């Protein structure tokens, strides 16, 4: 009972200092629910999984998660020397290097078209381009599997009209990853488009007007006015798309299960499989390797697109 009495009296004795103290206490009190949830559901799993990646934890240890052996970097070495994981890393790399520019280009093109070119039914197009983003991947996968079917699929039927025998898109190791990249681009460019559209609206019209009075072509204006002013938008889209693509998982998971012959398995998916097998240590190490790559790539992107 004595504690409240002290707080009652304290503001009078040393007003300035005490108020700060009680404000801080109130702040901590108000933030406590969040901090507690954050610590239990975010921080703790992160620490636990990092701990796990340095031990030989397996599914049989779940009842006694701390009585496991510390193995230092063994899991990391195991992951890096696993040919399937290396293949998965390579696939992920190709997916990012090809997929990210494609997605950004498609998003920017769609945004420019909606901003300038298309004037009628603009809303319809905007919704149409954005729909794939919010559609369930499972439904999308079914449709794409139909489209890409070797004998009766729409893609190969159309190719057949012009005399080309289309490949077995998902069944051939040479085209399977490309098919998934095409699908991911189609599915994700809508997000970039919406953000670019907002960015384009902040490009002042008078700059364009002045440039065109000086005789700049529309291509020159795009290159020298629109693009530089879109730099912060571009950075945001680039970083979020890259992070998303570095963790790509759903496409191979629902379309190919990583096949044929591991040609579409991704780092995230292989990590998921290792968790499923109960190899928590190795899976944790793989997840942290992916995390490190994401951090490094993001830092590089920030450096490269920084305002000069």
């Amino acid at each position, binding site marked *: 009972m004595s504690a409240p009495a002290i707080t009652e009296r304290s503001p009078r004795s040393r007003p300035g200092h005490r108020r700060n103290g009680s404000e801080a206490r109130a702040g901590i009190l108000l933030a406590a629910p969040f901090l507690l949830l954050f610590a239990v559901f975010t921080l703790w799993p992160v620490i636990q999984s990092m701990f796990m990646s340095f031990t030989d934890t397996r*599914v049989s240890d*779940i009842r006694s998660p*701390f009585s496991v*052996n510390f193995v230092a970097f063994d899991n990391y070495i195991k992951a890096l020397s696993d040919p399937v994981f290396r293949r998965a890393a390579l696939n992920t790399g190709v997916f990012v290097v090809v997929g990210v520019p494609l997605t950004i280009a498609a998003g920017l093109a769609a945004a420019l078209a909606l901003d300038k070119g298309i004037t009628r039914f603009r809303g319809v197009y905007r919704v149409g381009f954005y729909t794939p983003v919010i559609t369930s991947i499972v439904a999308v996968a079914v449709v794409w599997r139909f489209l890409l079917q070797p004998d009766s699929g729409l893609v190969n039927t159309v190719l057949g009209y012009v005399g080309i025998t289309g490949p077995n898109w998902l*069944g051939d190791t040479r085209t399977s990853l490309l098919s998934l990249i095409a699908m991911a681009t189609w599915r994700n460019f809508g997000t970039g488009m919406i953000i670019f559209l907002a960015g384009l609206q902040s490009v002042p019209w008078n700059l364009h007007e002045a440039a065109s009075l000086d005789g700049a072509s529309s291509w020159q204006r795009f290159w020298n006015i629109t693009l530089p002013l879109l730099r912060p938008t571009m950075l945001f889209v680039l970083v979020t798309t890259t992070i998303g693509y570095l963790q790509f998982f759903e496409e191979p998971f629902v379309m190919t299960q990583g*096949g044929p*012959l591991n040609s579409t398995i991704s780092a995230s998916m292989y990590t998921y499989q290792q968790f499923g097998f109960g190899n928590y240590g190795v899976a944790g190490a793989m997840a942290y390797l992916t995390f490190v790559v994401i951090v490094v790539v993001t830092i590089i992107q920030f450096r490269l697109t920084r305002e000069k």
Partner: protein
Amino acid sequence: MKNRMRTAAALTALLALVGMSACGRDAGGDTTNAPSQQAVDTGKATGTLTMWAMGTEGDKLPDLVKKFEADNPDVKVEVTAIPWNSAHDKFTAAIAAGTTPDLAMIGTTWMGEFVGLKALDPTPEMIDPSKFFEGAQATTVVQDTSYGVPWYVETRLVFYRTDIAKKAGITEAPTTWEGLHDMAKAMQDKGGSKWGISLQPGQTGSWQTVVPFMWSNGGEIVNKDMTAFTFDDPKNVEALKYYQSFFTDGIANKAPAQGTTEADFASGAAPMFISGPWMMASVETAGGAGFADKYDVALMPKKEISASFVGGSNLGVFKSTENRDAAWKLVDFLTTDTTQVEWFGMSTDLPSVQSAWDDESLKSDAKLAKFGTQLKTAFAPPPVQTWEQVSASFDAQVEKVTKTGTDPGEALKTVQQEATSIGMG
């Protein structure tokens, strides 16, 4: 700034603590010495029971246990239906947290893992293990002790189109390896089908078709005392070579589109395949009215024996149960032949109890009866804790063998190597 440093210090301390408390496993961790099989009392079951079941079984089971509740007025059974795709995670989480149900339907390939987690109660003597199909009963046995019972079973047979076979000049189902190969070839050459047979070219679950051929050839994938894998056994290599021949001879499609087996069977594009009893309903839906007369099923072809894969689900009682006697009584009720026949009528799940197959409802269907015959020589993979991972490695090599023509001997050597390094858990 000061605050941030303090947080950092606290974190480091926490990490150090976590690190220190993690100083190694208990030396004698695996002391599963002779599990006790206490007898179950013979009175009526009492108290409440919670039971987990997956898929359609979970939906339909409440109706079946009503009879058990009627027989035992003091017992209350609560069935929780859980979806298949999250079931395994739910079980492992419940085992870790000690919140398992009293009893549950358990996938046959999880037995090794759950017993390894010391979660299951050994089967008491009140249940006679010899009443079940041998291959199915074997899925409950880990290190010579049975932990549960087979509840329902399924096995794989050769499905073939009788009308196309007739066109190809074949009137009787093949009984040998050569016979199956020749028939598939004839279906393609004379029957006018695009492919002779639809077989899975690797990828998830292909071992369920390939390993039976190894058993058929007298091969085994683990040694007798379950201490080492024997994938590279010459008999296994020979079986994989046989499987590969369907692909190298152009009889089976190396890159079939997903989920087209039923449609291709109905259209005649691939007039044969190897699969389980659920396919009967699927192909009859795909083929339309009267299709049931256009196909038949045949036992797996023989080399040394006619071997197939046995699947299905087991029933297990969890060690943490506080109502062990009633739980086993419910298991006993679910595996009497009359309940099994009744359950077949409700769910079309095939009985695991052999005597249930003498019932008219199962005997009168000629196709179904063949599944009953095959079940006598249908086997399951050994209850190895790491089976999911080992089988994934196997499936990956089968894919190489069928699609790129990798030498079966080399492929199985790789499987053997990978399986050995994965270990048995």
